[in-house]
């Protein structure tokens, strides 16, 4: 059992829990994730990113949004109770180096896995600009933690209820237009956001990494459920990733695979949401018209 030692509700749908997992706390590096299962017999194995770790206390911090049955069950667990299975740290750590000027873009819950990456990039001596985005004020998380890391922190909301009223791609584009332009962009968030971050930086030739959160079962390279197409080749997110060159990822097939288990009705629902992405399509079209 992996005991929950702390729990905080960050917003209506977002929780942060501290979990006793001394080996993972000691081994984990920025960019890695765990697989969690709340019921050994009947539960689902779900990948969750590691937001933080305290090796001395032997705990890791997981931040998750309640989207399905399994995340709801996880959210229902009280402090002191245990999670029967936590496997990790999984995936390749982020390649940390002194790149120079780095922009970290975290959308929604994607801010959580961005936290250790931004922290490591800052420690390596980079100038770190952090863009945090969410649909509204309520869904902005970890602003304070990111503020202590960032040289510049930009907060945007879709509806303008907090920070600047914009999509993350708008300040990202402005940063790309500056001289010097960023040496590296790391984007973590909903796939549609990562896709459009890639489209935003592509014309500027700015190297852009995205961290993918696909459907997985074992997380160790055995099932292949997490596969994505990167530069035309099949890659496994769990052992080849989770980070890939965002300009080379086939985002459309990745998003369609994420919807694999939605019923036809849910798919229609997802399609409507994707039209929210069409707003981004429009933005990119506008950007292009603007003479990119």
């Amino acid at each position, binding site marked *: 059992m992996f005991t929950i030692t702390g729990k905080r509700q960050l917003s209506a749908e977002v929780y942060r829990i501290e979990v006793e997992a001394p080996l993972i706390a000691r081994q984990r590096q920025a960019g890695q994730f765990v697989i969690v299962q709340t019921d050994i017999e009947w539960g*689902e*194995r779900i990948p969750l990113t590691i937001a933080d770790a305290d090796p001395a206390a032997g705990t890791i911090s997981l931040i998750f949004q309640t989207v399905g049955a399994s995340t709801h069950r996880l959210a229902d667990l009280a402090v002191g109770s245990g999670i029967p299975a936590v496997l990790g740290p999984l995936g390749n750590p982020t390649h940390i180096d002194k790149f120079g000027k780095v922009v970290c873009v975290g959308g929604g819950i994607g801010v959580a896995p961005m936290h250790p990456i931004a922290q490591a990039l800052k420690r390596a001596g980079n100038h770190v600009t952090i863009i945090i985005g969410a649909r509204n004020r309520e869904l902005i998380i970890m602003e304070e933690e990111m503020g202590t890391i960032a040289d510049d922190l930009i907060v945007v909301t879709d509806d303008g209820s907090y920070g600047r009223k914009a999509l993350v791609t708008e300040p990202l584009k402005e940063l790309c237009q500056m001289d010097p332009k960023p040496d590296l962009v790391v984007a973590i968030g909903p796939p549609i956001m990562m896709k459009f971050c890639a489209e935003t930086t592509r014309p500027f030739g700015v190297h852009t990494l995205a961290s993918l959160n696909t459907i997985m079962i074992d997380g160790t390279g055995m099932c292949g459920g997490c596969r994505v197409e990167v530069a035309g080749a099949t890659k496994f997110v769990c052992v080849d990733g989770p980070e890939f060159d965002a300009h080379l990822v086939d985002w459309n097939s990745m998003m369609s695979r994420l919807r694999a288990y939605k019923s036809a009705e849910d798919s229609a629902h997802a399609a409507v949401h994707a039209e929210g992405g069409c707003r981004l399509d429009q933005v990119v079209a506008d950007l292009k018209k603007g003479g990119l």
Partner: protein
Amino acid sequence: MLSNAEILRDPSSLGPRERMAIAVQDMPCQEPAIRATNMEEVALGYSEEQARLEAARCLQCKTAPCIAGCPVGIDIPGFLAETVVGRYAEAAAIIRLTNLLPAICGRVCPQEVQCQAPCTLGKALKSVDKAVQIGRLERFVADREREAIAGGAVVAAVSLAPATGKRVAVVGSGPAGLTVAADVRRAGHEVVIFEAFQKVGGVMVYGIPEFRLPKAIVREEAAKLEAMGVRFELNTLVGRTRPLQALLDEEGFDAVFVGVGAGLPKFMNIPGEILVGVFSANEYLTRANLMKAWDRQKAATPLYPSQRVAVLGGGNVAMDAARMALRLGAAEVHVLYRRTRAEMPARAEEVGHAMEEGIQFQFLTNPVEIYGNGEGRVAGVVAQAYQLGEPDESGRRRPVAIPGSERKQDFDTVIVALGNESNPLLAKTTPGLKVDKWSHILVDGEQRTSMDRIWAGGDIVLGAATVILAMGEGRRAAVSINRFLAG
């Protein structure tokens, strides 16, 4: 012709001609139409009379070529001689001298290419199908022992050598790992098994379906190891949760055995494999077996709603996936295999069972493309016809594509069962561990790797093989580890 009663009255008096005249005992099975709708075991096991009659067929020939045909060298004539006179506990004890997992091997070994292939009786009757049904008898004896234990019988505890104070880490709890654990523990060493999944058993729990290998058997075997003092640490991925070298350098283990199994599922690298509805057999079976997604009421892990399923491949895993798809409600399941039935690597009994259940086989057929429905989901495959040409290195006739034979077929699900590449994780996180170009760990004749005090065996060395071959490697590694620790 002797009656069954006459045969069994004094089997030791039977001459070779009388033994040869006894009919092969068929395995009782669930009716195909019924079993295709449930997860229960298909083969029901011999009755006592059947078992004794089948054992009476053994000629007890002096050469016993069956023993050499068994990867772990079971004294087969010995256990059959006990079985024929109804001394099942003694028969089980003989098997257990060399095979820790008889209830499992009796069910999943490809006996027709191992112990039963060279059987003198089969040769005399000019058909391997007429060899003594050793696998079914192994299962019978093991099941009698299980029933006895469940009924409260006390089976003599495995004797352990005095504690040596030496510690052995076993990475992976599949057939190779469990075998090493038992053999090393018997020599008095402390054993800890590390398993990445939430349950013990490796491929025996995630891969092989319940209808072929009931999971209760795997649990019983794990419990026996625990009773011997073997400790399990689940949810531990060596190479990530604990670095391999750290087991030796920091955690005080004196030796490590790596039996992590095959890894990355192979795909065909044809257009359309990224479509939703294309699964590796590993994923499909893991969802159904380990995650129990077949129980739609209780399981949280979702299943894809498949109606027309194409399974690509001709091995045991392909048979398991096809038969599972049928049980999960598919209306039609087709196996596409580019050679013919004769070349199929699957266990003959599984192919027969699959055919009885209504799985459709398209031999000499190989897909060249998977096409979508325009919304990212599978709509079918374009398959090409093949013919058999000259034999290749494996001795099997090489399939040759017939140009212009491409044909579209509608499917909503494609399951790829073409074997596995090795998982690169350990090699990647362990500098100094030598692997071949397929990431299989390189070992010597004693299963020693390129690294000091680290042994390896099973599918991570062999590529995708069988339970019994993995056990054979485990046994060889354990001998070497025990010798090293004694020295």
